């Protein structure tokens, strides 16, 4: 085990429950590096939703709440508002965050509450066996879209930005170095920060949508379907069709953060009482 694994993982919870080649472990790996670099272990409050990615924080030996499907952001809101000094990180899958938890997601972003949401985007409901997700590409065949997905997928980053998130980034698990840096930036940011991670799911999305369970092949496909936000500036709409922009997509340090703003009012009200 890597020394950072020795330092940050709950030994009695190992081995990690994910399938071989699953990207969730790479995200865990990137997260512990971000935590190490920021030196904030004792201020952390970690919240996991339901689904494969919801288990990421369960393995990190800090304070962890593993909650209900879709509700990670409200639990995180309670944790943040009960002590504004803590740094709260939510790990949520695309179904957890954009499907059942979509309303909480847009309202968390609207408030600009200082919570970091790391959304693991694997195009499918993996833990339940490969059903169509809010991020599944149109026409993809899954267990619950056997004739091809008739729906359009969500763009999580655009939704986050439009809803009021003040830090938005997207990377893939093929970019672990950049991913770890983005997670650190997101945690450090004062406001609602959103990091979308495009990742391979060999067992479900791989077999069901892409016809291969080879994690490396899948990750290559994901990587090939991205373009850096900078490079995209010079491209036409046709050239960008179907591509995911990667990089820091939005960073606003001006908008007031909710907990700080509200606590000022609370302090005033308490002093006047």
């Amino acid at each position, binding site marked *: 085990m890597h020394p950072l694994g020795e330092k940050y993982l709950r030994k009695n919870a190992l081995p990690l429950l994910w399938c071989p080649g699953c990207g969730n472990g790479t995200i865990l790996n990137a997260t512990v590096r971000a935590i190490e670099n920021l030196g904030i272990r004792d201020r952390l*409050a970690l919240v996991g939703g339901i689904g494969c990615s919801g288990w990421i924080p369960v393995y990190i030996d800090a304070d962890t709440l*593993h909650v209900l499907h879709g509700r990670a952001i409200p639990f995180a809101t*309670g944790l943040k508002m*009960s002590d504004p*000094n803590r740094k709260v990180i939510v790990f949520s899958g695309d179904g957890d965050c954009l499907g059942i938890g979509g309303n909480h997601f847009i309202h968390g972003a609207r408030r600009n509450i200082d919570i970091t949401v790391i959304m693991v985007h694997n195009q499918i409901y993996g833990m339940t066996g490969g059903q169509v997700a809010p991020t599944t590409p149109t026409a993809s065949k899954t267990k619950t879209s056997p004739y091809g997905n008739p729906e359009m997928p969500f763009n999580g980053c655009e939704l986050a930005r439009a809803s009021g998130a003040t830090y938005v980034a997207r990377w893939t698990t093929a970019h672990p170095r950049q991913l770890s840096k983005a997670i650190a930036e997101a945690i450090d940011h004062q406001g609602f920060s959103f990091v979308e991670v495009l990742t391979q799911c060999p067992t479900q999305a791989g077999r069901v949508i892409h016809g291969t369970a080879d994690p490396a092949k899948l990750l290559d496909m994901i990587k090939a379907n991205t373009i850096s936000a900078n490079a995209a500036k010079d491209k036409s709409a046709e050239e960008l069709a179907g591509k995911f922009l990667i990089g820091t997509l939005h960073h606003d340090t001006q908008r007031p953060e909710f907990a700080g703003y509200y606590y000022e009012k609370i302090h005033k009200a*308490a002093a006047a009482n």
Partner: protein
Amino acid sequence: MGQEVNNEKVKILQGNEAIVEAAVAAGCRFFAGYPITPASEVAETMAQRLPQVGGVFMQMEDEIASICATIGASFGGLKACTASSGPGISLKQEGVGYASAVEAPIVVINVMRGGPATGMPTAVGQQDIMQAKYGSHGDYEIIALMPSSCQEAFDLTYKAFELSEHYRVPVYVLSDEIVGHTREKVRIPANLSPVERKKPAKENFQPYKAQANGLLDGMPGFNEGYRLLIDGQLHDEQGNRAAHLPDVCARLTERLCRKISDHADQLVDIESSYLEDAEIIVVSFGSPSRPSLRAVKDARAKGIKAGYLKLRIIWPFPETKLVELTAGARTLIVPELNIGRVVNEVKRAVGGQKEVVGLSKLGGLLHTPGEIQAEIERRAQACTR
């Protein structure tokens, strides 16, 4: 507002406001809610009052978010509360189950209105009593208190926080639209000293290692050095998932239930009058308690040996005490604002040993004293015939 006499403040408060004053007095410093009739005044008053004592009020995006934020704040270190009614309470049920499983102390205020569905938003009901006990999936136990006046709204909400913290369980205050919207005199003791959360020892700490009585010892918070793992999946004593371990899961489920049911004797809160020679006893709870007491007094004036009970804690159901208190009676009358739910609990408790009569009232109106008295007289005549 109000005046202080003999170490107590006397205020004219709405039931919903009394709940807030009690919560603040009990040390509640976090509330998350969503507007809904007839509970909105709880949120409105919390929004005003909590910041004055350094607390946080959150209006969340929905009812589900409200209870989830409440649980988050509870583990965040604050005594925490949410409130709603009817459809909102239905939406919160998954959160109630989660709080039960992870043993989060929270208080859930239900200002009951008529249902089902949108039902009767501005009219009273007591149709959520079974929901309070059974509303979420899986086996668990909760505690539920039922005020019948603004004073009891204060007293029982205060008590709800103490019980919730002691048993580390969600506690319901099953108030109702009548109590919530009645304004009357409330005496608030000036020298209340709510119990502070006890912090577990850090040496050999295990978040779900219970004491011999089934209860967890204290309530740890996030960022206090415990490195907590709190998981809604059934877990072992360290908090690790245990859904693949039948013995561990069975033991936890049983403990979650028995930590309440084993202490049922300590969770009895019953008021009574005229029981000594009573042949017919009205077993009441919540708003119908008030016309019940009037009816019993009026029946007594007519020479009928009527008695009165008010169950202030409805869950766990006080069956042992109820049997003891009603031992001399021939008939029990159970007025309730639903199709007849608690009457079955009373029947089960007395085990066919006496006549148990339901007096169900639907439609959003409270029983009149006359209606209850008429039932008492009918039963009295049936006995003498």
